[in-house]
């Protein structure tokens, strides 16, 4: 290859990526017999950090080479080039170079939350993370619980956010529905890896439901201050256990009155305490009964005026 494996000179660094502010050591080895025009014994090696001259030590190395060592005590640039130069015909020749980056191990991702979309059963997760000081590979990891993984050898799956983003979607085929899965975010760069807290959730428990529909609202015979509300869950949650709540108010009310804890699928619910001859506006929403469930949007509203 051009200049042989090592060539006329080569620069070696302890590590191309270092923690910001830490020391960087480098050595430049010049093999005069491989650099036409360089007279052995008269080689003076110099260093530059980007365009800043640096002073290194110089001594003879093995096999007639000249070696210069350099230490930068506190390397505090995010990125720099370390140049090795030699004097030649009255000029300074750049004969070797090493790129050095500095930064921090990735920050621990936090506030991981996930939501299952019922139209395609993809699980979309998002999280927070500090800025990257170095090129960082981020991935959401998703697996059935550790014990099962070891027993069945199921692979860890997940998804990768685009452009180092903070959200991505695990497709249905990589999910295990109705069973606890471990979900976490991993961020890795040259200086280390950081993992978020692990969520242990059944994807179905974090489904975002579509709103129910209010079918009809009627007065209850002989109980003039009561009304009966007929409602229906959305088709996408027709098979699910639900926990729903109703809210209503008349135009004069500032706040909504809330009727929590309506469960089951579509049995009409009865509520009392309504004023006579008053128009009320009703809405309903549902969610999964499990902890961490997301409320659906409120259903389209329905008006009903109680009897005089």
């Amino acid at each position, binding site marked *: 290859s051009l200049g042989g494996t090592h060539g006329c000179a080569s620069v070696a660094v302890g590590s191309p990526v270092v923690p910001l502010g830490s020391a960087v050591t480098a050595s430049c080895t010049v093999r005069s017999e491989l650099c036409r025009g360089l007279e052995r014994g008269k080689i003076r090696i110099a260093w530059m950090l980007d365009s800043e001259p640096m002073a290194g030590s110089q001594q003879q190395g093995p096999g007639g080479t000249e070696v210069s060592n350099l230490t930068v005590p506190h390397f505090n640039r995010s990125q720099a080039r370390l140049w090795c130069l030699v004097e030649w015909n009255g000029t300074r020749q750049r004969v070797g170079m090493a790129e050095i980056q500095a930064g921090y191990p990735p920050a621990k991702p936090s506030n991981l939350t996930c939501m299952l979309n019922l139209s*395609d059963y993809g699980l979309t997760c998002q999280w927070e993370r500090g800025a990257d000081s170095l090129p960082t590979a981020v991935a959401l990891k998703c697996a059935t619980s550790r014990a*099962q993984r070891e*027993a069945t050898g199921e692979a860890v799956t997940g998804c990768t956010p685009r452009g180092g983003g903070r959200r991505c979607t695990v497709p249905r085929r990589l999910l*295990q*529905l109705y*069973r606890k899965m471990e979900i976490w975010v991993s961020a890795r760069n040259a200086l280390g890896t950081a993992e978020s807290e692990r969520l242990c959730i059944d994807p*179905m428990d974090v489904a975002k439901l579509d709103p129910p529909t209010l079918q009809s609202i009627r007065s209850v015979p002989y109980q003039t201050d009561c009304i009966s509300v007929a409602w229906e869950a959305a088709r996408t949650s027709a*098979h*699910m*256990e639900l926990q729903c709540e109703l809210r209503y108010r008349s135009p004069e009310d500032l706040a909504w009155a809330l009727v929590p804890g309506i469960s089951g699928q579509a049995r009409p619910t009865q509520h009392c305490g309504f004023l006579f001859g008053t128009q009320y506006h009703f809405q309903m929403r549902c969610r999964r009964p499990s902890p961490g469930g997301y409320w659906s949007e409120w259903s389209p509203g329905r008006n009903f005026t109680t009897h005089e």
Partner: protein
Amino acid sequence: MPLPEFSGDQDFQLFLRKSLEFTRKIKGDVAALQRAVCDTFQLCKEEELLLVRQHLGIAQSPLEQCHSRSFQAEACFSRLCQELQSYHSSLASVRELLPAHADLVEQLQLDAANLSSNIQQQMEDLGLTTVTYPAESRGALPVFSSLFHHQVGSFFILADFQRFLETAYRALRHLAR
């Protein structure tokens, strides 16, 4: 129907409630595909296709281990796991037939596989041993000699799967408190 001793276990009851809901979901999706087969191929009534069914040799496993008289948890659960796996593969021929519903069929296959491994996992958690049964003819993907036979074959895969789910649902509901 005799109840196994673990039926009072809280985790087991949660597993049953989740599995009942999952089965309801799968039943709904199978019904949607049955409507699609009826609308698309005019194949809607089982009684009009019994002769061709008999001719195609499509057998359905009776699932006697899950029926009330002879209910036996380990045998029933093992049978459910195995049948769900075989429906997971035989649904592939339904997918070929209904390209417009490929996503729904793929979801159905994933759900069948998930429910099967959920049951499998629950059996392991309870320390039950899995009983393996001779693989049904439906295990391998059937090869149909004509488009009509492919359509009728798919019709019966869905009809049998719906019946299977009905039996599974009843068995699970019996165990759920």
